[in-house]
């Protein structure tokens, strides 16, 4: 029962990560990020419940507040303020993107990453999912032209690392976890402020327009 719960959550996490590549509307992208974050937070809550730890429960609640409420709200404000309903296109066309995503999804199962799956053999499948999401999020960062998608790609990458750490048994102490979540919140605050500034100056968040600084 517990195994199927964690398996369901990591599958949901993985599915939302892949779906981000197919989505063009920024608002849906934010919703997908919130769902992905919720899956991670539920994993953390489950871990806290298994350990019967109040402090880890507080960490999970803090993550819930930051990742599923505050961050989507920041992004929502950015979208409505700058009317950036649609995200810009990708560098690669959808079929090629889908092929690369498929390749990245199976990459953790290759022999190169076998030592990482062996860190916690009982969670090898879940670690493979987390690593797959990790690579797919990295790809989103380089394939999207839109600044907002890049920000969400980066946050998705951070969620993948949290999921990996959870299954590999590498969770940090509560204080450090709170520090990391706080860091993510500050990062989003700064990134959205900078994105607003960029929108004012460039009239778009398409990073292709940022080509003034070349040799």
């Amino acid at each position, binding site marked *: 029962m517990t195994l199927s719960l964690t398996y369901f959550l990591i599958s949901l996490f993985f599915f939302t990560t892949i779906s981000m590549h197919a989505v063009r509307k920024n608002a849906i992208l934010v919703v997908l990020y919130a769902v992905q974050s919720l899956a991670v937070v539920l994993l953390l809550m489950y871990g806290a419940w298994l350990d019967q730890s109040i402090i880890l429960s507080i960490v999970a609640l803090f993550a819930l507040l930051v990742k599923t409420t505050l961050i989507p709200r920041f992004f929502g404000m950015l979208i409505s303020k700058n009317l950036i309903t649609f995200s810009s296109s990708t560098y690669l066309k959808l079929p090629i993107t889908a092929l690369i995503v498929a390749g990245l999804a199976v990459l953790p199962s290759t022999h190169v990453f076998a030592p*990482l799956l062996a860190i916690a053999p009982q969670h090898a499948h879940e670690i493979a999912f987390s690593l797959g999401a990790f690579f797919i999020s990295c790809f989103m960062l380089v394939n999207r032209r839109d600044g907002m998608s*890049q920000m969400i790609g*980066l946050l998705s990458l951070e969620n993948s690392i949290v999921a990996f750490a959870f299954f590999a048994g590498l969770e940090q102490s509560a204080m450090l976890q709170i520090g990391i979540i706080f*860091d993510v919140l500050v*990062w989003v605050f*700064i990134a959205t402020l900078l994105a607003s500034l*960029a929108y004012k*100056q460039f009239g778009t968040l398409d990073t292709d327009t940022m080509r003034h*600084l070349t*040799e």
Partner: protein
Amino acid sequence: MNTLLIIIGAPIVAAIVATLSKKITAIEYTSVSAIILSTGATLFLAPSVAKYGIVVFSSIFAVDALSMIGMLITSVIGLAAMIYSVGYLRDEVKKEIIGHSRVRQYFVLINLFIAAMLLACASSNPVIMWLAIEATTLSTTFLISFYNKATATEAAWKYLLINSLGLLLGFFGTLLYLTATATAPETFSTWQTLVANSAFLNPDVARIAFVFILIGYGTKVGLAPMHTWLPDAHSKAPVPISALLSGVLLNIALIAVLRFRAITDATAGGDFTQNLLIALGLFSIVIAACIILIQKNYKRMLAYSSIENMGILALGFGFGGVATIAALLHMIYHSLAKSTLFLSSGNIFLTYSSTKIAKIRGVLTSLPVTGVVFFTCILAIAGLPPFGIFFTKLYILFAGAGAHPYIVATALVAFAIVFIGFLRHATGMLFGEPTEDIIPNIERDRLLIAAPIILMTLLATLSVYLPETLATLLMNASKLI
């Protein structure tokens, strides 16, 4: 603990004062006083670290020789940058380029930036070090976009995104190393416990982890091909920030790589990390050399020189042996020379209002002191004797010549290209007659002259004389890598 509290706490207090105070003079005095206090405490701590090898403050804070070198570089260059900032910003306010609120914002952020770098050095826990290095990214983003121009925003955006991606990869690598202590009872893993437990780390996991660390923190170091953010950020930031970014921050990130390298070598042998460091080091040197030769912007030229010097450091640490000590010494010399160059380039910018090499003529006539300081440090950074950089480069190349002759030969050619590039650009800027519209009154401001002169004097002194404490720290640090 009190000493460390002063070292890190003083800039934080100055940042709080800058947030709350509305008087610019009070903010300036507090910021300079705080960094003087912090530097004094760092210098006070250095002999103890040299004597005992490591000074442990708590379960998460300990200063060893490598940390101490990083902290000394941070505080000394931080002090020079802070003094210079006062004069630089006063001039910009006078010219109505910025307003008082921007000055306040600047001092809040620069103090937080310095505190974050000191925290990164003093932390013995890899995750706290990561958090502190991430804090340097967050505190400097709005310093890079300080002038609110489209190009500055573009540079800040690239800086934030690329560095954050790099640091997340670095964080992933960090977590992989923690598998060595996953079963240990300590709440916080330290560099010392990680090295001691390296036998429990799977060598394959260590190799994968080091690749992530090198790509991740290597992005922050500015090693090619992850260097793309660096010339943009360093050229768009206000010059005291460029001095700190080039002269200090790159070294702090490199220290993080070296910490993980020691764990990897203890687990998987030295060849793997050695080859990676040599490859990225040489690539950085060659890329930087080619671009320096054709560069049109003097701030970007200095930024590419930082990439070249980070490459030299990677090469030195890759070669190992005597090259390790030479690389550590090179780190100090480069920090001093590059910061001096950035600060003196600030005087050139304030006078000529341009960063284009073609538009700068007759600096020796219009700004004689700045011109001499700039030219001296150009010669130093290009590796001309009797400056220390000549000897550190020589030792690094000698150390690698036996085992890697082709790499050394390629590096030597690249150094020659850099030398030609620097000399060509510098002579064009320094000699000739300045145009008539140039008003050379910058050097009347002692703050704008004092900081570069102090750093250059320190560089010249350390080139011929190494204090015993510093020599001991260098020897001890080389044993940690």
